[in-house]
Every structure is written in structure tokens, then in C-alpha cells.
């Protein structure tokens, strides 16, 4: 073919509207502009470089996993700088503390860095303006920076002409750098082009498994099937006889708490993936399955149920719930259950490592390259400075790829084998050795007075907390309980929440929106149950229970403090006006109240963002439940990239639907029963709604989370719609278990 890939990609670029940001080559090992070696031009910090030819490079220190961080952060910074987006390159940062926190997690990339990244770009702008002011011998106050130049009326000097002079000026203090007013930020609350689109649609985008090094072997690992299991002995002869298999290596044995340690077992290394997989299937391993081999999801569910039927440890308390329950005209009570959920990113975990001269270099689809370096250094017993972590594209992550276990497996094997190694997880490995979202049972109890008003709310929750993966723990922490227990705004005079015992028998991790998934499912369903018990419209009852627009104090919540996703309560209070606002917008869009459709509603605040979801369900041709349309309204404060915010919410509806319809990893004998997509089902295109309407509130408030908060209200909205259609109340996920989907 005469035309090269690069020209073709260039052609695709030209098909976009003007004003796009160009993507860098996929992440790799080439020298970075941000390396100290290339200091020509202006580089006031590690995030921005203006070259003498005017080329602007912006470093993206967060991982790209579909949320569009590589499309959003550079556009935001280009705005603040006054750069022409077509002359901005994006460079993917390696894992390095000089970038600050790089853990792409907690829906935090924009909300935590909004001011800091703008300031990094504004600092470069102030220096370019100062250089122009010196050149023209005028006051910098009279100058403006836009369109890749500094302007004094009609006179201008381009960024390229100013870069070297600006680079010799002192870097101003943060307090002397003024950010642009919102009206000058042309890209905020705009649909921004997807910079990595061309690389993705041509197959050029490099994910973790796509990195190829000379002499690289592929490793597939037989891991202990049960958490805490061990290899007793193994026979590698038949595995080594498979053509292409080069080595069989015993992995280090993990010790509880498991944290990010490699999972143990036996690795088969071959010169291609197929041979490694075949070799693994020929391994003869004797396992000691350990204490968790008795773990059984059905009996554990009964344990959790017993646990929430006894009083637990108080997590919040207002008024006197017991007295209200004792004098209630009516008590409504319901138990809810959500199983372990698996991440199943489309790309199973994969990482490539090279070890030479006491140093280790890895390429990984990781959400947290700094944590990967820490774990590699620990496993290899080398200083962290001797490790490098390049971040590839992430083929889905959802929290799974924050955990460094698969990266350190590759590092260990690269050293042992003396060759570069790619560790390739199979889908079966991914499902069997996940850091599952916690399994949960809740008991919700409400007291109604003679007029039917809700006078008491008691919520008991039992789940094995994430901290159990990292240390011996007694129970959930404040950060766990703020996800739909201690932070629920309720205009009810007596409220108490309790946590009940739940032991961990698998690795527990965080999955997109985490504990909010089951807490929102139970609370959102129970509010709907209370509405029906009272004979009220669910929307009216929900608004009544949330109460009037107000800032909810810690005293009203009945807690002494709230972690609030790392934000202060002053900057990000719990504002029932915003929660009511999204409920009003979502229900209005959906035509709530008109007859003829079975609608369900739920609303939830998480990661500081307020989201309301309405879904419509129907029976399909075979009598099964289907979601035909969904409406989602979100108030996330200032939103930069309107297009990615909308698509994250649209994706959250599908993600939440998968939990509601099919989600659930179950264990028998400590072993996960689901092995691949026929057993761990996900929503497919024919299951998807015909339409998902997303309304993102335009706001000047501080930015909140985008990636996760769309998920929690989806499952309860579906369950409530099922009740509206069929009169059947769903108190356990997935719906598949009830045989209705």
C-alpha cells in the first residue's frame, strides 16, 4: 500500500473540526519532552513545555481508560495557556512522584487537579506574557495571550518567538498566577474531540498486551484457585514438552494480607501465547487450597442475613429509632442482597517487563503506575529508583488495574527468566483471581406514624471491607460507610445505621462506584417500597424523604465526620437542592407521571456528584424484562468535556444494567464458579436500551466526579421499574436469578 499509516491517520485528523488536540504516539519508551535533558524553550513545571518552534507539549499524568482524560486535560490546559489546540501534543507520563498523585481512581482526575493543572498552564502563560512585556518594554498587565501568541493590541509575538526568553525568567509563585475567568475558557462545558480516536479505530493504539520487546517470552500462570492456597508440588515435564515452551518457573508464595502481591502458582513461559496456554494446561500441580476452600456463596449469604438480623455497631445516629419503631403505627422492613461483582475489563490484565543491570522497566495497562513501581521494588528487593513504569492504554479498568499484582508478576518473571516477559492473564484467570467488589446484605426498617409519615429509618449493612485485602480489620471504615450509609440525606427525625460482621474469603477490591452500588440499590429500592406502602407517587415520596433544599450538616447526619471523598464539606457540602434538582430534571425528561409506561426512579450522590436515573422497562417478545429507554440527569459541578461526561454516564447506565441483570461472582469450595462470558454475562447490544438521554447540568461550581457516580442509581431504578410493570419486588441482584431477564 503506497500510503503509510501515519498519512492515513493524518487524513483522519483533517476530517475533524478545527481546534483539536493532536495525540502523541502511543505511550512508550522514547525520550520524554519533560525529561531534564530537553530544556530548551519554556518548561516551568513537569506538565507544560513550550518549544522554541512553538510546539506545546502537555503531559497527561493520569491513565486513559475510556473516560477521556487524554482528551480533556490537555484541552483544559491549552485553554488556560492560550495555545492553539492543533499545536498541542500530549505526552503520557511514566509513573513518577513528581507528577503528584497519579492513581486514576475515585473519579478524581479533573475534580482534584482542576485548579492545579490550570495553574501549571497559567504559569507558562504568565512567563510568556512577561517575556513579551520585556521585549516591548510595556507593562504585562496590558497584554493578552491567546491563539498561540501574546498580543499588545494588534501587535503580537508568537509563543515560539517568546519561549526561550520566557524560559530564562524566574518561575512565578503560585499566588502570583491568576487563572483565567470562566468566560475565557473556550473548552469548558464543550464536547471535545476524542484525541485517541484515530489510533483506536486503526488498531494502532497500544494496550498492555500489545507491547513487544526483542526476545520477549509470554508467561501464562497457573495460580492457586482459592485465596490463600499454595503449591504443594508440581511436575513440569509435560508442559516443557509442548513446542515453544521455554521455561517453567515457580512464583513467590503470597502471604496474607494479600495486598498487591503476585498470587503465587507456577508460570509457563513460551515464545508465543498459544504455547504458554497449552503448556499451562499440561502442568501437573498439587494444591493446598487452604482455609478459604470452605467458602460457599449460598451459605455465606445465610451468614450475612443472620448478621443483619442482630444489632450491629452504630455508624450514625439521630433521635431514637428504637422508641419510634416501638410506637410506630406500621413497620416496613426489607432485606436486600448484592453478590460479589467482577470487573471483567475487556482487556484482561497484561504487563511487559524487562530486567537488566539491577533495574526493572515495565509497560502496563495500570491505573496506578506509582503503586506498580512500589510493588515491583518490593518483589524484586531493589530500590524504587531502579524501576520504571510506562503507562499504555487501558482496555477497561474499573478499579481492577489499580492493583499491581499482574505488573509485579511480569517483573519477577523477567528477572528470573533473564529475558523480557509479557504476563498474559486469560479471561478465566481474570474472573477467578479478581479483587471482587464486596458481597453485601442489608436490612432496612422504617417506622410510619398514624398519618403514614416516615418517622424512623434503620439501615443495617454487612459486607467484607476492602481493607481486609491489606490488613487485619474489624469492620468497615468511615470511608466505606460514606458510600450510601452515613451520607444519605434523609428528612426523617430518627435515623440509625449499623454495620454488622462480614468476614472476607476472597480478595476484596474496589469496582467503579464500589459500595455505593449495593447501598444505593437497597436505599433506592426501599424508598420506592415505602412510597408504595404509603400509596404515594415514588417521586413525591422520594422528594419528601430527601426534604427541602438545604445544606445537610454532620449533626443532621448523626456523624462526627465524613471523609467526603477527600473534599472539604465547605467546598462540597451535601446539598439536597442539587439532589432534588437532578430528580426533577430526570423525571421531567422522562415524562414521569404520564400513564402507559412502567418507570422506575432512583437518585444518589457519590464522588460529590448528584445523579438521578429513570428507566422504562417492558416485556420483550419472549416475556422477559427489557430496559427500553433511560434518562439520566447529573450535577457534577463544572464539567470540562461535555462529550466524555455524557458518554461516561451513558456507559454507566449499561454498566449498572449488567450488574442488575446478570452481575454476580459466586464461589463454591472457595473457587469462583464463573469462568468466562457465557457464565459471567454482560449486557450485549440487543439488551441495551433504544435510547439513553443524558442531561449534564451546566454549573460554575467546583468540579465533581464523572466516571463512577452514574452507576449507583441504575440498578434500583431498574428494580423499581420492574415493580411498576409487574408488581414483583426485586430485593436481590441479579434479576437473572429471579428468572425474569
Amino acid at each position: 500500500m503506497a500510503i503509510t499509516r501515519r498519512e492515513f491517520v493524518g487524513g483522519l485528523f483533517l476530517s475533524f473540526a478545527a481546534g483539536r488536540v493532536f495525540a502523541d504516539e502511543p505511550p512508550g519508551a522514547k525520550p520524554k519532552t519533560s525529561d531534564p535533558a530537553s530544556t530548551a524553550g519554556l518548561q516551568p513545571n513537569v506538565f507544560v513545555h513550550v518549544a522554541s518552534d512553538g510546539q506545546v507539549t502537555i503531559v497527561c499524568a493520569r491513565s486513559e481508560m475510556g473516560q477521556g482524560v487524554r482528551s480533556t486535560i490537555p484541552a483544559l490546559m491549552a485553554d488556560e495557556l492560550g495555545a492553539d489546540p492543533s499545536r498541542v501534543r500530549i505526552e503520557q507520563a511514566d509513573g513518577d512522584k513528581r507528577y503528584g498523585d497519579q492513581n486514576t481512581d475515585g473519579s478524581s482526575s479533573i475534580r482534584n487537579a482542576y485548579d492545579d493543572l490550570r495553574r501549571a498552564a497559567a504559569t507558562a502563560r504568565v512567563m510568556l506574557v512577561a517575556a513579551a512585556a520585556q521585549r516591548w518594554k510595556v507593562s504585562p498587565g496590558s497584554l493578552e495571550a491567546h491563539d498561540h501568541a501574546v498580543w499588545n493590541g494588534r501587535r503580537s509575538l508568537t509563543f515560539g518567538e517568546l519561549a526561550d526568553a520566557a524560559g530564562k525568567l524566574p518561575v512565578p509563585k503560585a499566588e502570583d498566577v491568576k487563572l483565567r475567568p470562566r468566560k475565557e475558557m473556550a473548552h469548558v462545558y464543550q464536547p471535545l474531540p476524542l484525541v485517541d480516536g484515530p489510533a483506536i479505530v486503526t488498531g494502532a493504539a497500544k494496550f498492555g498486551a500489545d507491547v513487544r520487546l526483542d526476545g520477549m517470552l509470554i508467561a501464562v500462570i497457573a495460580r492457586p484457585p482459592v485465596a490463600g492456597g499454595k503449591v504443594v508440588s508440581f511436575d513440569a515435564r509435560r508442559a516443557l514438552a509442548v513446542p515453544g515452551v521455554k521455561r517453567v518457573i515457580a512464583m513467590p508464595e503470597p502471604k496474607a494480607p494479600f495486598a498487591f502481591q503476585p498470587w503465587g502458582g507456577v508460570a509457563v513461559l513460551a515464545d508465543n501465547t498459544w504455547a504458554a496456554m497449552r503448556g499451562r494446561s499440561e502442568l501437573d500441580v498439587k494444591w493446598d487450597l487452604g482455609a478459604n476452600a470452605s467458602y460457599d456463596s449460598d451459605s455465606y449469604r445465610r451468614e450475612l442475613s443472620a448478621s443483619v438480623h442482630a444489632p450491629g455497631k452504630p455508624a450514625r445516629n439521630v433521635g431514637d429509632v428504637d422508641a419510634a419503631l416501638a410506637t410506630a403505627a406500621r413497620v416496613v422492613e426489607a432485606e436486600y442482597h448484592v453478590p460479589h461483582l467482577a470487573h471483567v475489563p475487556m482487556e484482561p490484565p497484561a504487563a511487559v517487563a524487562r530486567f537488566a543491570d539491577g533495574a526493572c522497566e515495565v509497560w502496563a495497562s495500570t491505573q496506578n503506575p506509582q503503586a506498580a513501581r512500589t510493588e515491583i521494588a518490593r518483589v524484586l528487593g531493589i530500590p524504587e529508583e531502579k524501576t520504571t513504569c510506562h503507562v499504555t492504554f487501558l482496555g477497561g479498568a474499573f478499579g481492577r488495574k489499580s492493583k499491581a499484582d499482574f505488573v509485579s508478576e511480569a517483573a519477577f518473571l523477567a528477572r528470573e527468566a533473564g529475558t523480557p516477559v509479557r504476563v498474559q492473564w486469560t479471561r478465566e484467570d481474570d474472573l477467578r483471581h479478581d479483587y471482587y467488589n464486596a458481597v453485601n446484605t442489608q436490612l432496612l426498617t422504617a417506622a410510619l406514624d398514624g398519618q403514614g409519615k416516615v418517622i424512623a429509618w434503620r439501615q443495617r449493612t454487612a459486607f467484607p471491607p476492602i481493607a481486609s485485602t491489606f490488613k487485619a480489620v474489624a469492620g468497615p471504615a468511615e470511608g466505606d460507610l460514606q458510600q450510601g450509609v452515613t451520607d444519605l440525606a434523609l428528612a426523617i427525625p430518627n435515623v440509625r445505621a449499623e454495620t454488622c460482621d462480614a468476614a472476607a474469603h476472597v480478595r476484596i477490591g474496589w469496582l467503579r462506584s464500589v459500595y455505593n452500588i449495593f447501598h444505593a440499590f437497597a436505599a433506592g429500592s426501599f424508598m420506592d417500597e415505602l412510597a408504595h406502602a404509603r400509596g404515594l407517587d415514588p417521586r413525591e415520596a422520594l422528594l419528601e424523604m430527601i426534604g427541602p433544599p438545604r445544606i445537610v450538616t454532620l449533626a443532621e447526619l448523626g456523624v462526627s465526620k465524613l471523609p467526603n471523598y477527600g473534599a472539604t464539606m465547605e467546598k462540597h457540602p451535601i446539598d439536597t437542592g442539587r439532589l432534588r434538582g437532578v430528580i426533577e430534571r430526570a423525571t421531567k425528561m422522562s415524562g414521569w407521571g404520564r400513564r402507559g409506561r412502567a418507570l422506575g426512579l432512583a437518585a444518589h450522590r457519590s464522588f460529590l456528584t448528584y445523579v438521578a436515573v429513570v428507566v422504562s422497562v417492558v416485556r420483550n417478545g419472549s416475556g422477559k424484562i427489557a430496559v427500553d429507554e433511560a434518562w439520566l440527569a447529573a450535577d457534577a459541578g463544572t464539567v470540562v468535556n461535555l462529550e466524555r461526561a455524557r458518554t461516561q454516564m451513558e456507559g454507566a447506565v449499561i454498566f449498572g444494567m449488567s450488574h442488575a441483570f446478570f452481575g454476580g461472582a459466586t464461589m463454591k469450595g472457595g473457587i469462583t464458579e464463573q469462568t468466562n462470558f457465557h457464565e459471567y454475562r454482560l449486557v450485549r447490544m440487543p439488551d441495551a436500551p433504544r435510547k439513553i438521554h443524558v442531561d449534564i447540568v451546566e454549573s460554575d461550581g467546583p468540579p465533581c466526579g464523572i466516571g463512577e457516580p452514574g452507576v449507583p442509581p441504575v440498578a434500583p431504578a431498574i428494580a423499581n421499574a420492574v415493580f411498576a410493570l409487574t408488581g414483583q419486588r426485586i430485593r436481590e441482584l441479579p434479576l437473572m436469578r429471579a428468572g425474569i431477564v
Partner: protein
Amino acid sequence: MIRLSVNGTMRELDVDPEMPLLWALRDVLGLTGTKYGCGQALCGACTVHLDGEVVRSCVTPVARAAGKSVTTIEGLYDHPLQRAWCDMAVPQCGFCQSGQIMTAAALLAQNPKPRDQDIDQSLAGNLCRCGTYLHIRAAVKRAAGMPEE
């Protein structure tokens, strides 16, 4: 030695004839645009064309491709689907999109004006964990020159 055409170029492969085409493409030929997602023809991430027909390369022995013509995502050149995918910002993480595009390309080759049911049926075997299905549907219609609603 297995001879086959890959994206218009004749290739000779000295590999286990049982090796799935997926691994021959990725590990031996270095064409990493075709993705591994399940190994059991359950997710569609590995979809390629074999003599114009959609196959799941993860369960297709490379011997079955002998003497035939394989097209991967790297072999699509400026396809209307690729343009529609970019213009409408279909991908999120992007990992499943090679397979989605290859499946949709075969659909449009056979059925230039597909109905919604045709699109759903054709792409039912291609999973997307990010949830881009509605965008995919709309982009297939745009590439086919049909109204997106």
C-alpha cells in the same frame, strides 16, 4: 508451513497448525490491533475477516486460513466506519472497537442499509464493557448514510 494472505500481503508461517489465528496475527506477525478478550468466541474482540466472512480468530486454527485471505483492522483503509467512529467519538477505552468495526464492516458489505435489528443481531457477539453500544449503532447508520435516529 502455512501460506495465507494477510491484509493483501502473502505470508508464510512456520507455526503449530492448531495455533489460533489470533495468536499467529498478534505474536508472530505483530499485528496487535486484533485483541484477545476471552479465547472462546464469546466477546468478539478478536474478530477478523476470512475471505470476507467474519470469524473469531481466537477459535480459528491458523490452518483453516491456509490459502485464504485474512483482513484485520490494520487492513481497513479509510473505511467509512472508521471515520464515523472518530466523528461520533464512539470508543471509550477502545479495546473492543477493532472487533466491533470488523463485524460492522462485514455487515455493511452484505447489507448496505441495515435495520436496527440487523445491526443488533450482527453485533450481538461483540461485548463492550464501557457501554458504547448506542454510539456504535448510530455510527454504523451514519457510515451507511442512514438517519441515526
